[in-house]
Structures are given as C-alpha cells and as structure tokens.
C-alpha cells in the first residue's frame, strides 16, 4: 500500500546515487593510463601549504577526481549517445555517419596561414636545392559525402588543395582527390580513424608512380587485423561503433632498415611494420611506429641511388611503407617534433628531391612549418 510519504523517494534516490558514486570513487582501484585518451591520468595531489594557498591544490584535486571518476568512460559514452538522441550530431567533434563511419568535424581552415606555410616550404626547398612534389590528402568527411549524416557543416579541403595547387605551379603537384576518388568498392578511409587505409595509401602510391613514371612494385596482403579503434572513435565516445580492420600489404621479399631518431637517441629496426601495436586499440602506429621526429628508411635491396626527403604528418606513415620500395633512402621529417636543422642531412646524403605530404587541415593550420625558416 502506498503511504503519503512516497514523494520522498526522490531525495532518497538522489542521495543514494551521490553516495554510491562517492564511495565507489574511494573504493575502486585507480587506473594510471587512459587508452582512449592516450594520456597518463593524474596522480593524487600532494599537500603543501604553498599549493593550498595559491589554489593549485584544489585544481589538482579537481583533475584527479575527474580523471578517476567511477565509470568514467561509461559516462562519456552515455553523454555521446544522449547528444545523438538530441540530434546534436557533431557537437563532440565527431559526426556519426552512415555504415559505422565516424568523421572528425573540421576546425576553421586558415588559408592565410596555408600561404605562409607553403612559402616557408618553398624558401626551404630553394635554399636546399630540392625538387618538390606535393600531395595534400583531403579528409574523409570531404571525400565521403555519401557516408556523411544528412545534416553537417561543410568541409573545405577542396579550397586548401586548390589554393596550394595555384601556389605550387612550378612544382609537381599530385591531386590526391582524383587518386582517392573511388571507382571500386575498396574502402580508402578507416571508419573509426582519420587516416587512409592501406588501400587508400596504395592508391596514392599508384598515383605517385604514374606521375613519376615508376613501374611500381608488387605488394601482398600479409596481415588482416580486426579490432582497430581509431582516433575518431576515441574522441566520439560512441563506444558501440564497430572496429575497423587494419590490413598490411608488404613486399614479399622486402628488406629494410628503419632508423628512428628521437633527440640524440638513434634506434635501428629491421622492418617497416611494428606488430606490437596490433594489440592496442589504436593500431595505426603499426606503420613505422607512429609519430617520430626523424625516421630514416634504408632499402637494403635497392641500389638505384635515389634518395628522398618527406616533409609530412601521419598520413605519410602507411604511404611510406609502399613508397620505400622505390627509393634507396628515405628521410621522413615531422616538423611537429623535429627541431634541428634538416640541411645537414640533405648535404651529407646528397638528397635532391622532396615530397611534401600533409593532410589538408594540418597543412593549413600547422604552426610548426614556420620552424623550417629557423632550422
């Protein structure tokens, strides 16, 4: 039988929920690393009078609570699906498209900065006597209109590529848009990640070979790995999205030495592929171990004397595993991390050729390319 006090169920439930989560916060073991966010979670704040007085103690406590909140990722997911329910697709920085596609939304592209970046690269190329080839990769949202949700903001990769094409009339310019215009059923972009799939990178490689009149090498599918959850997935909070399959195409008899330089540390590896990343959520670093300041790829079976510098962001990683077959030596420089002169290497190795390979958004908005004029 109902009593007249049934209205008090509300405060009871309210207090109970707060209490349960508070207790859980203290009781549950704490993780030190968040794989989806790719960051180390904060440590409990250490008390000092100084930090108490200047307010950093409470700031740290706040971060600590947020980082280790019980069911943290479940709450993030709930919020993401709530936004979907409210039709606020894209508010979290990711559009949920058709067929399991997730598309990162596009920040404002800065065409003035694009011009500055391109002229910085031109100045560098002139200074070093490099012959330059450009390849600017449009994002998935721009290329896959059919997979986009019906309501979305427009993507402006086309403007970036057109502008760059005009500015680089004296260089070789490979329009990645036509290379990535799909006439087969191949999936050229990952569904849960912003990168090109191996098929997409291969399409770019083919276009590069045609432009450079290279015969091209044969590659074979060697690995097919499920369970790849990319950056768009991590950002979206849409945890029920199906993972991608990552494929590796390799030369049957490839023999490479990969030298990765971080600061003053040089490490040699015997392969273009780093399979240890295949057990992680984000598997893309399987190609050349992900982001590094300087990577040297030595093709041990090739003595054609051809050497190449690639100025790049991560779109180049998968692509380079194909292109490596064509050159004796490739240097890849990532200006987001590389902060020492490149010209020394160019002179020592006698490199005369450069490929600039960037995602359109990065090339337009990068603040790191300006470093070229200082290096």
């Amino acid at each position, binding site marked *: 039988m109902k009593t007249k006090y049934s*209205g008090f169920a509300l405060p009871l439930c309210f207090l109970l929920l707060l209490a349960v989560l508070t207790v859980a916060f203290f009781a549950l073991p704490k993780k030190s690393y968040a794989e*989806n966010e*790719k960051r180390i979670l904060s440590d409990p704040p250490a008390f000092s009078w100084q930090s108490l007085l200047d307010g950093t103690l409470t700031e740290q406590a706040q971060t600590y609570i947020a980082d280790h909140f019980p069911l943290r990722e479940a709450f993030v997911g709930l919020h993401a699906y709530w936004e979907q329910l409210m039709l606020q697709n894209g508010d979290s920085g990711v559009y949920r498209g058709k067929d399991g596609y997730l598309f990162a939304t596009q920040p404002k592209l800065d065409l003035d900065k694009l011009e500055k970046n391109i002229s910085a690269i031109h100045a560098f190329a002139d200074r070093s006597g490099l012959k330059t080839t450009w390849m600017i990769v449009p994002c998935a949202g721009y290329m896959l209109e059919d997979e986009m949700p019906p309501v979305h903001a427009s993507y402006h990769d086309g403007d970036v590529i057109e502008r760059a094409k005009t500015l680089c009339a004296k260089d070789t310019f490979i329009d990645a848009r036509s290379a990535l215009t799909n006439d087969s059923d191949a999936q050229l972009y990952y569904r849960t990640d912003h990168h090109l799939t191996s098929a997409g990178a291969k399409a770019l490689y083919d276009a590069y070979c045609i432009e450079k009149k290279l015969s091209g090498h044969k590659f074979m599918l060697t690995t097919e790995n499920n369970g790849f959850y990319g950056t768009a997935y991590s950002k979206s909070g849409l945890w029920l999205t199906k993972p991608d399959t990552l494929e590796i195409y390799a030369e049957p008899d490839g023999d490479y030495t990969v030298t990765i330089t971080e600061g003053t540390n040089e490490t040699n590896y015997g392969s273009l592929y780093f399979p240890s990343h295949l057990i992680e959520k984000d598997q893309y670093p399987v190609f050349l171990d992900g982001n590094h300041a300087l990577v040297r790829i030595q093709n041990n079976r090739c003595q054609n004397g051809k050497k190449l510098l690639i100025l790049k962001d991560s779109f180049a990683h998968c692509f380079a595993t194909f292109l490596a077959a064509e050159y004796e030596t490739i240097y890849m420089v990532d200006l987001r991390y590389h902060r020492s002169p490149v010209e020394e290497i160019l002179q020592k190795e006698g490199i005369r050729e450069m490929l600039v390979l960037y995602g359109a958004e990065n090339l337009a908005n990068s603040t790191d390319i300006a470093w070229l004029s200082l290096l």
Partner: protein
Amino acid sequence: MVFSSLPFLFFFFPATLICYYAVPNKAKNAVLLLFSLLFYGYGEPVYILLMVGSILLNYTAGRLLGAFDESEKKRKAVLVLCVIANLLLLGFFKYASLFVSTVKLLPVFSFLPDPQIALPIGISFYTFQSMSYVIDTYRRNCAPQKNLITFGTYVALFPQLIAGPIVRYVDVETQLQHRTHSLVLFTNGVRLFLFGLCKKVLLANALGSIWDQCKAEAGVNPTLTAWVGILAFTFQIFFDFSGYSDMAVGLGKMFGFEFVRNFNYPYTADSITDFWRRWHISLGTWFREYVYIPLGGNRRGKARQCLNIFIVWGLTGIWHGASWNFLLWGLYFGVLLTIEKFGLLQRLQKAPRVLAHLYTLFFVVLGWVLFDFTHLRDMGAYFANLFTPQNGLLTSDGLALLISHLPLFVCAVVFSAPTARKAFERWKSHRVYRVLEPVLGVAALVLCIASLVSSTYNPFLYFRF
C-alpha cells in the same frame, strides 16, 4: 567551486550535509559558516580573508548602530562610513582595473601599471547582501545581529554566495535563528536543485557551444547563423543564471532556508518593464529599495524620475561586470524603460499580446549583444551580421547549425515558459507521477553527471610517447 561540478556534488555537498544534520541545532550555523568559508576558499584561498574582513566590518557596523541607538547623528555617520567602506572594497577589487585602463587612454596617465587584481568570486553579491543588512538596521527594519557566527552565516552562506539570489537580511532574519527542517522542504529542495542542475548542464552548456562558435565569427556570420547564435545565447544566459539560482534556492531548502525567487519566466514578459520584474528579481529589488526609492523614485517630478532611472540602470549595468559594455547595456534598458514609462507601456497594454511579446523579446535579445561583447568593434560587427546580408542570408552551414540543435531549442522554449511547472502542479499528486518522479530524477542526474564527466574527457590524440 560551482554546484555543477564533480567536486561539489560528490565531496563538498555530501560532507556538508552529513555534518550539518549530525550536529545539534545550536551548532548548525557554525557548520554552515565553516563549510561556506571552505567553499569560498576552494578557488581562491587568500580571499577568505577578504570575506572575513567584510563580515567583521558589517557586523561591527551593525553593533555600533545598536549601541548608538539614541544618537541619530552617530548612527548616520556609522551608516555612511560602512557603506563607503563596502563600496570601496567592491570598487577596488572589481573596478580598479577598468578605471586604470580607461584613465590610461589619456597620454598623461599612460605610465600607470595595470593593477592586475583577480576578481574575488561573488564579491558583488555578498557586498550587496551586507549593505542590505546595514541599511535595514539603520532604518530599524531589523535588529542588529549580536551573534557573529549567525551574521557570518548570513553573509557567507554558500548556496547564494557566488551567484545570488541577493538575499536581504530582513527576509532571512528569523530563519537564521530558528528554522525548521522538514522532509517536505528537503524534497522540494532536491527537486529544485535537480531542475536547476539540468537547466545549467543539459541546456545552458550545450547552447553555449553554439554561441561560442557564432561569437568567434563576429563579422563573418551569415544572417541566419547570427540569429541562431544570439538566440542560443539568449537561452544560455537564462538557463545558466536561473539554473544556478534554482540550485541555490534548492540547496537553501535542504538546509532549512526559504530564499526569494529570482526568476519568474522572464521571456514570457510583455514589456521591458515586465521583463525586469521577472529577471534577476533580487537585484532589481535591491536597487529599488536601496537606490531608486532613496533617490526619490517617482515622487519628485518627471525629470527627476528620468534621472533616477538612468542612475539605477547605469549602476545595474556596471554591476554586471567591470567593462563599459555593461554600462551601455544598463543604459540601453534605461532608455527603453523611460520610453515605456512615458506612454509606450499604456499602448502596449492595449496592443495584441503577440506584438507585445515580440517587441519585448526583440529588444531583450538585442540587449544580449551589448551584454556579451566587450569590444565595440565586435559588437558592431555582430549587429551588422544580424541586420545586413553582407555574408549571405542563409548558408548550408547555418542551416545545419540550426537543424542539428532544433530539439535543444525546442526544449529551451518549453522550459522558458511555465508549461513544465504547470504540468508538475497538475500531476504532482498523481500516483503515476509519484512512481515516475524518482526514476526521472535519477535519470536526469545521471545525464548531468555524464555531461560533467564528458567535459573533462580530453583525448590527447596526437600525443607521442
């Protein structure tokens, strides 16, 4: 600390509640005072001293007013000194930077350094509360408070400390000393708190992200986008502020206080005069009681009334923030209210209701442009976006922005009107509602927590190891 944050909901609030109800009635104010000071010190520990100083100043003034009961002259002197001291505190901590940066525009003073004072949170609110106490004690509307802890509790009380409502001492005098706690009051408090939390977290924050986009693009927004943006801000500021007030009033109830209502569906107003009776009511009341009426209000002729209106609205404007655009915003309403006082209001009352509402909303919405742009150049650029098609009337991006937030806007409209409240009043004793309420309440709280947690979720995607 703000109410819509994880540390408040899961640490501060439960700890306060447990301590508060664990101690006997006599000690409850002391517990509230202690926790309020902690609450205040959470963000800026040093400013606890300022708060304590302000409490001591006004407490002493109250005691002196009581001690000089026989001498009107001395009482007046105490009042004047205390009010000046309060205004100096507020002036120094809130307006010094504005003053210096404005004076620096004159070449003679360009050497002046910027004072770089961080605004103490809530100083505008607690200074006004303290002043209401001193003025009302002087007017003998209330007796001087002899108990320092009780007085301290009034000034520092954390529910209304940082964003109002501005509670007048006379309104809570008895509650400070004898208040009854009941489950019914507590339940109402939880209900109101949850409602306020949803307004802030689920509506205001989401609407805010639309406005942030449009505000950043001031000058290049197409017309439709500009209107979507300013409407988003219109709703954002209402749900933000009234949500915070609801949470404050709700928390007050949980601790046995009944505060005045601060918002009464302002966007349903049918004139600007009406709007200001519904928006931030406690501030309007304060200015009426302690500025407008003492200046003579409408009793000294039309010219004087006009002047009084402009003084009050100039002050109301600049009270909102140390920036000249707030003064502009206040005076804008001064002009509108004067026009209404001298004839428009009567015509509005005869006009069709729809017209009266549209007129009111139109000017209120435009007012928010003045309110939220600190720089005149951006403000002008945004007005140009609203009223000229210089960047096109309608773009696909603008349309996408509108469509993808349509459900949010519909919710915003519904909860700006008394519809939800009426439905609640009608159904609250119904059996189905009684079963449903705790379920809805928990669901709402879970969604709010999800949103708060999600806002701290920062994928660091390009990080390198």
